[in-house]
């Protein structure tokens, strides 16, 4: 065998050996090793645990994720809502801005308007001031004109009243003349023909006494110190009762002119007197705001009537019951007292003070004369004003009733004396005299019992007497030296008594 062949054989052999080795070594084992080299799950349980743990974690993560996604949804919704609201707010802001600019313009506009208005207002104000001044002037002018007017009207009224009075007078004269004519005619007729019933006597005719016209001063009595403001006669008697400044009441016998009684107890000067119909009680109105009631027989004060808060200037007692006393004081009241009960039953308040009082014959009505010149009638039960009439232009100073109770005589500071019909309150007559000046606010005048004469005192100390029928002065009595404060006619017809400021009482027959 050649060397070459040997060599070739050896090489072949070597190659075969390599192949065999390959097959046996890596050829056989490589697949298994590669397969085994893959990650072996040797630690199965550990991995399982790990896997489970991871699963749990994953679940938790999922949960957390879901929660987060929920939250996210909520947040997104919120944010959307916020965006929407933000948008709204922005639009509102834009609107508000617009509004604002508008209002600003308006405002500036208004400012200019306001300034204009203010200027106009100022102008108007100045005008107004001027007008106000003018108005004031005109008002003053008007007032003056009014006052003038009023005054003129008053004067005119006065004139009218005077005219009326004159007319009344004329009428009265005329009527009087007619009456006289009638009377004379009737006399004639009566003389010619007396037929039928001739009335012999009037009721109360026994008491009738023709009153003489007093002319002579019978007595001159120094009755009171300081002045005598009130005198009166007892009913149908000649006893004169006087009350004066010296707080005493004296009873005089006018036939003799001597003092028969004295009543004391009054605490102030006596301003007015009244006597009951049965001549048992004398009531005095005192300046000490009281009224005192004396029992004449015993001479003791029976009652003291308190209640007035100012001086009592007038008093009268009912002619019917002698139980009711009416008093007027300068506290603008008129009080009605019940002597049996002992207290004031009615109080009438009137703005004008009453100077004089008088009961009507039936004792139901009071006549009062007031400072304002009005005559008023009051109902005693209710205290209500029944009627009033302007009697005088100045204050009334005296009221007295005629014997028949139909006519009221009033005297006033206007120096007039009027007669009023009690029912109609019409003036029946007016009397005056030239020298006759009413002395004081409470100068009392009186009527004769035959209702035909009027006597009134004067400030010059004389007493004037008028005849109603003649409507003229009948006589003038001069005796007093001081102003005559009051006069009174006896129920018997004579005498006539008068008292003056010095306290002197004169009786006249």
């Amino acid at each position, binding site marked *: 065998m050649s*060397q070459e062949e040997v*060599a070739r054989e*050896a*090489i072949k052999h070597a190659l075969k050996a*390599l192949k065999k080795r390959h097959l046996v*070594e*890596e050829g056989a084992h490589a697949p298994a090793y590669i397969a085994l080299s893959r990650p072996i799950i040797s630690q199965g349980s550990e991995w399982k645990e790990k896997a489970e743990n991871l699963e749990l974690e994953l679940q938790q993560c999922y949960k957390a994720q879901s929660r987060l996604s929920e939250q996210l949804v909520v947040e997104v919704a919120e944010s959307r809502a916020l965006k929407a609201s933000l948008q709204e707010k922005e639009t509102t802001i834009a609107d508000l801005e617009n509004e604002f600019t508008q209002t600003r313009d308006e405002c500036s506009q208004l400012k200019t308007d306001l300034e204009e208005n203010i200027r106009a207002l100022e102008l108007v104000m100045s005008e107004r001031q001027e007008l106000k001044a003018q108005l004031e002037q005109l008002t003053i002018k008007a007032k003056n004109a009014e006052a003038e007017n009023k005054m003129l009207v008053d004067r005119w009224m006065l004139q009218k009243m005077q005219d009326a009075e004159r007319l009344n007078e004329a009428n009265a004269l005329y009527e009087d003349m007619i009456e006289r004519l009638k009377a004379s005619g009737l006399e004639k007729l009566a003389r010619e023909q007396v037929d039928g019933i001739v009335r012999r006597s009037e009721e109360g005719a026994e008491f009738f006494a023709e009153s003489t016209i007093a002319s002579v001063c019978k007595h001159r009595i120094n009755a009171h110190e300081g002045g005598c403001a009130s005198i009166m006669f007892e009913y149908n008697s000649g006893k004169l009762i006087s009350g004066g400044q010296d707080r005493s009441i004296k009873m005089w016998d006018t036939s003799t002119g001597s003092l028969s009684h004295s009543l004391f107890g009054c605490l102030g000067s006596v301003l007015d007197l009244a006597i009951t119909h049965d001549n048992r009680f004398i009531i005095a109105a005192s300046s000490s705001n009281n009224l005192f009631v004396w029992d004449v027989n015993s001479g003791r004060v029976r009652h003291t009537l308190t209640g007035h808060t100012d001086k009592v200037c007038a008093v009268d007692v009912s002619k019917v019951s002698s139980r009711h006393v009416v008093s007027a004081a300068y506290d603008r009241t008129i009080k009605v007292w019940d002597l049996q009960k002992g207290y004031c039953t009615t109080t009438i308040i009137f703005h004008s003070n009453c100077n004089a009082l008088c009961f009507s014959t039936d004792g139901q009505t009071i006549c009062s004369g007031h400072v304002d010149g009005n005559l008023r009638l009051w109902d005693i039960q209710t205290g209500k004003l029944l009627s009033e009439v302007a009697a005088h232009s100045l204050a009334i100073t005296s009221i007295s009733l005629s014997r028949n109770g139909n006519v009221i005589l009033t005297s006033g500071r206007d120096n007039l004396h009027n007669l009023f019909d009690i029912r109609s309150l019409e003036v029946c007559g007016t009397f005056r005299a030239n020298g006759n000046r009413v002395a004081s606010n409470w100068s009392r005048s009186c009527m004769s019992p035959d209702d035909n004469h009027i006597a009134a005192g004067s400030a010059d100390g004389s007493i004037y007497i008028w005849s109603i029928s003649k409507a003229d002065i009948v006589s003038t009595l001069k005796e007093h030296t001081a102003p005559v404060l009051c006069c009174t006619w006896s129920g018997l017809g004579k005498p006539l008594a008068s008292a003056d400021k010095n306290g002197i009482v004169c009786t006249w027959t």
Partner: protein
Amino acid sequence: MRKAIQKRMEAKKYVWEGAIPLQIHLHESQVTTLPPPPPSLILAPRIGYLPLLVPLIKPHFSSTLPPGVDTIWFEYRGLPLKCQNQPPNGGFFCCRYIPTGVLFDLLCAEPERPWNITVHFRGYPGNVLIPCDGEDSVKWSFINSLKEAAYIINGNCKNVMNMSQSDQLELWHSVMNGNLEAYLRVSSKLKLATIEDEYTSLCSSKSQQGSGETDFTGQVKTGRVPVRLYVWSISEDFDDLEDLSQVDSWEKISYINRPIEIHKEGKCFTLHDAMKSLLPEFFSDESLSDSKLARVDFEDAQKIPSEDVSSNKVVEDQGQNAYEHREACCISSSAEIKLIRIQGIEPKLEIPFSWLVNNLLNPDHFLHICVCVKVPQ
């Protein structure tokens, strides 16, 4: 033509793809878990090195290790595995790593597949072993081996030293990954002359008769081949490889690092010739002229015709290779080479050495030869 190239590359491919199935057991002293960890099964490339396998082995066992510092070492049937050979007087060429395939061929007379070795992480036998450091030291060893080879072949190692860093790395990586193409690409730049070998082409194609191969006295360069020889000495005869007793000590293994010089005058330089030049004491009455060798069938583990080793031939040392050399004197006539293994195969002695050189070289350009010799007491 392609097929011819394939055929030519066939043997090289086998060499590069060769891998030993390893079954690595953790030593029981270091098992801390129950059940004990299964052995790590790894295919170790023949041309690779055991320390490079550590990154694969360690994770497999790391969970069961006792606490402490690890130093890895391997052991086969009690014998700690030397990863490196250690020339006794140090010198320029220090420790060189032994390829895995060589270890296997050397230590397993009867190849054990898979190869059951034991890994230790503790208890390093510092008196026996040098520590296997890691990939870097292996790489440097490889490069230095290349330099050595270049020196032997060319007389200088300039070509290796002038290799760029990237080329070095690429070369090393091609070795680590078993990438033959990359290796050939880079190493061709090195111009490490290969021995012209007409036989490879001869075997591959019979049709190429006319390429003048009949002329054996062709222009074969006279060159030197780097060789590392591992000699396992045994004392007794054996019939079967399995009967061989275990290598129980490194004393029994000697390492010879000596190049073979090929000088031909006409005839083919065979393996036999190479071995004679390396271990002349085992080839006593052989003349250097060519002689016909009886075909020996190594597969049947026949006895190698005993050589007379009476004549001492001093084998020339090329270079400063220090090797352990058994004294040729006083060797009885019964000393004989029992076994020659290269790359896991036992080639016939007649095989042209040039073929071996061209096909069975390790990447470090060395031919690693394992020899089992019987040395009489």
